């Protein structure tokens, strides 16, 4: 058996001649596997996150000596989808995944659902058993098209190799246009082996898929008028402002109009938090000011946001005094949870400047006085002590060490909320977190994807001891590809958010949420994979560990940061409460 040395040889452009010159002239038809790789290369795909298996062996045979794209060998297909997702969030380009049939496909499901909820463009290729045995419960057969139907924007089972190239091009078009999302292509093994047509025809035209981007001009004019005459306007920007790459337009507009801006979890970075107009994040763990502002505002401009329940709190207490304008590219997002007076279906990047052109700055001086009072009286609390690390302090320090310029990738839970609250986000595509689905295990592999996409940027994965362990196998990938991700593991020896809810709402009955001494030694864990492991238990140690870690540029670093185990995340809007009923401490919550 020939070996291609290591699984990562794709990284180091091997000496073998490329596919096209290995006795396969252009005129000769290619098999499906070759068409797949050729089309991906033609589409400008540079990175493919994959894991081999029986049904995709023809593709791996092609990848053996074709190094036109960089195949990253992850250790679990779920991690592959998260890594591709991180790659997509960091760049705006679609992430590409390759998995085998059956379990390979089903392992991608969580990652696909994560991408669907946050509207992230992914194209996932799964192997399938040969066409002739589909439906016969063949070895490693799963109806992945059926399984992923509700969590993909579109999916395909390829039944004719001559259609393969077109289907791939269509999939990329659908994944990236309109409201982005994941698309899956299921590839029966015989399709990969059969010779077929490759045309190189780039044009994709789908008559039934024409997203509306311009925005209705009379509605735009009305929006401009409403904002011009507002006394207490507020912009509420969501993930759509990032996906639609409208951060510059949004910033220019909000600054000129001097309208306060609050962002959702997914919208962090769409408006620089260093600007005076920024009120920070709103919602369940949003700032006091942002939640009060949305409760009290008279005109609310929602930009690529979807009025998610974590944002609105109890609906009948949500922003009752405001007239609402909602810009979104997906009409089904508008009016779904909250009735809106003025819907504008369109691309935020086009609609915001159109409103900007027509609107004049409203008189907001009184409004700003109120806001400044809230900000003064209810700042975010960062507790500090010399002998122990408070989690808020940990995030603050990471923010300072990286100058707010890192790509921050998180898992899900307390650390995610603290990271969202206390890291100063000034750049778009620098906050990568599973918002809608809340997928634990997402952070670390997504950080690897982001780091591979942006080798020039510092990537910090703020994670927890729970989420990190879900896909810690990816330490092997990180070491193999020399990915210098800094893992800041906020270690409180428990599933913090679960424990917090149990403490506050279940009489502190901490059922199955505390790991205690059952956690592994994370430093040794890092070391056994060949990564660097470090530990800190005091702020002074943390400072040193962080500065040492930032110097390491060729391998992953895992920082086991022991934080105060009983700290809770505030402000918090308890489930079922309205935004202005938020609490700021354990004492207030127990009242």
């Amino acid at each position: 058996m020939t070996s291609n040395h290591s699984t990562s040889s794709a990284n180091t452009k091997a000496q073998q001649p490329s596919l096209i010159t290995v006795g396969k002239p252009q005129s000769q038809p290619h098999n499906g596997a070759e068409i797949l790789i050729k089309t991906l290369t033609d589409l400008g795909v540079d990175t493919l996150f994959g894991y081999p298996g029986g049904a995709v062996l023809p593709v791996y045979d092609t990848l053996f000596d074709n190094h036109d794209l960089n195949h990253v060998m992850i250790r679990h297909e779920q991690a592959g989808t998260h890594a591709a997702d991180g790659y997509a969030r960091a760049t705006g380009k679609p992430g590409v995944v390759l998995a085998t049939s059956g379990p390979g496909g089903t392992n991608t499901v969580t990652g696909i659902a994560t991408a669907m909820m946050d509207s992230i463009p992914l194209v996932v290729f799964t192997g399938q058993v040969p066409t002739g045995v589909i439906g016969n419960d063949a070895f490693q057969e799963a109806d992945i098209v059926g399984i992923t139907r509700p969590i993909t924007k579109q999916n395909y089972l390829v039944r004719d190799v001559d259609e393969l190239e077109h289907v791939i091009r269509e999939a990329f078009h659908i994944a990236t246009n309109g409201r982005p999302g994941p698309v899956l292509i299921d590839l029966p093994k015989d399709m990969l082996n059969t010779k077929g047509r490759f045309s190189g025809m780039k044009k994709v035209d789908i008559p039934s898929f024409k997203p509306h981007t311009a925005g209705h001009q009379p509605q735009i004019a009305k929006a401009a008028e409403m904002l011009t005459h507002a006394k207490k306007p507020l912009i509420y920007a969501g993930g759509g402002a990032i996906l639609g790459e409208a951060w510059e337009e949004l910033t220019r507009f909000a600054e000129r109009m001097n309208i306060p801006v609050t962002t959702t979890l997914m919208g962090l970075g769409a408006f620089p938090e260093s600007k005076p107009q920024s009120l920070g994040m709103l919602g369940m763990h949003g700032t006091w000011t942002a939640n009060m502002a949305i409760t009290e505002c008279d005109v609310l401009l929602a930009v690529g946001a979807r009025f998610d329940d974590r944002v609105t709190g109890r609906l009948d207490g949500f922003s009752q005094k405001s007239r609402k304008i909602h810009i979104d590219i997906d009409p089904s997002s508008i009016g779904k949870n909250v009735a809106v007076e003025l819907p504008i279906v369109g691309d935020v990047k086009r609609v915001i400047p159109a409103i900007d052109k027509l609107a004049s700055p409203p008189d907001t001086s009184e409004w700003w006085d109120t806001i400044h009072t809230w900000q003064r009286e209810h700042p975010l609390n960062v507790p500090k002590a010399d002998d122990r690390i408070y989690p808020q302090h940990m995030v603050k320090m990471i923010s300072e060490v990286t100058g707010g310029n890192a790509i921050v990738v998180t898992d899900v839970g307390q650390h995610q909320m603290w990271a969202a609250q206390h890291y100063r986000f000034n750049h778009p595509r620098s906050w990568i977190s599973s918002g809608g689905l809340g997928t634990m295990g997402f952070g670390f592999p997504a950080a690897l994807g982001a780091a591979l996409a942006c080798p020039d940027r510092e990537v910090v994965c703020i994670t927890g001891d729970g989420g990190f362990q879900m896909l810690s196998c990816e330490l092997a990938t990180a070491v193999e590809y020399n990915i210098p991700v800094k893992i800041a593991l906020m270690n409180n020896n428990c599933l913090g958010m679960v424990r917090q809810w149990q403490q506050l709402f279940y009489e502190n009955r901490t059922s199955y949420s505390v790991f205690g001494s059952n956690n592994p030694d994370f430093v040794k864990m890092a070391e056994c994979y060949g990564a660097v492991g470090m530990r800190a238990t005091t702020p002074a140690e943390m400072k040193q560990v962080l500065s040492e870690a930032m110097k390491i540029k060729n391998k992953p670093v895992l920082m086991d940061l022991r934080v105060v185990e009983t700290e809770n995340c505030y402000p918090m809007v308890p489930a079922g409460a309205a935004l202005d009923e938020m609490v700021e401490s354990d004492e207030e919550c127990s009242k």
Partner: protein
Amino acid sequence: MSNHSVSNDSRHTLTVLVKHNLNTLSRILGIFSGKGFELESVTFASEAEQGMARITITTYGDETTVEQITKHLHNVVDVLKVTDLTHKKCIERELAIVKVSTAKAGRPEIMLIAQAFKAKVIDITDDKLALEVTGNTDKVDAMIAVLKPYGIAEMSRTGSIALKREFQGAVNIN
């Protein structure tokens, strides 16, 4: 959408033009099952144009809910057109085959009822008549209600199919 405000719910007939494949039909049905929308009937059949199919859906909901349904249907990549025929003049038809017992009242009485609904007798046995009726859902419902006391042995309905009337004026030849 989970707000079932019963009071404002009304029946809506949607006609959906799609690319003919089962994945599309499944996606459309998945919107109803996955998002908790009501589904009264659904028909799916090839369209005159090659590779296309028409799906007729009857559903219940208030205006907001049906608007959401329409938007979600539009979002399915292979859906070309969604028309809510509810507030339009439309031709709506359903076909039903009803096997009704003649034991109680005898054939003539049942056949008189059939005549009143312009239903055809399509099968006769010792103790039953099979009737074929077409019309809008109200008419089919009405005939079934009238026949029920005689004893309906078996019944099959197609669910509605509908198209918009070309003429949207006041005259409506049903």
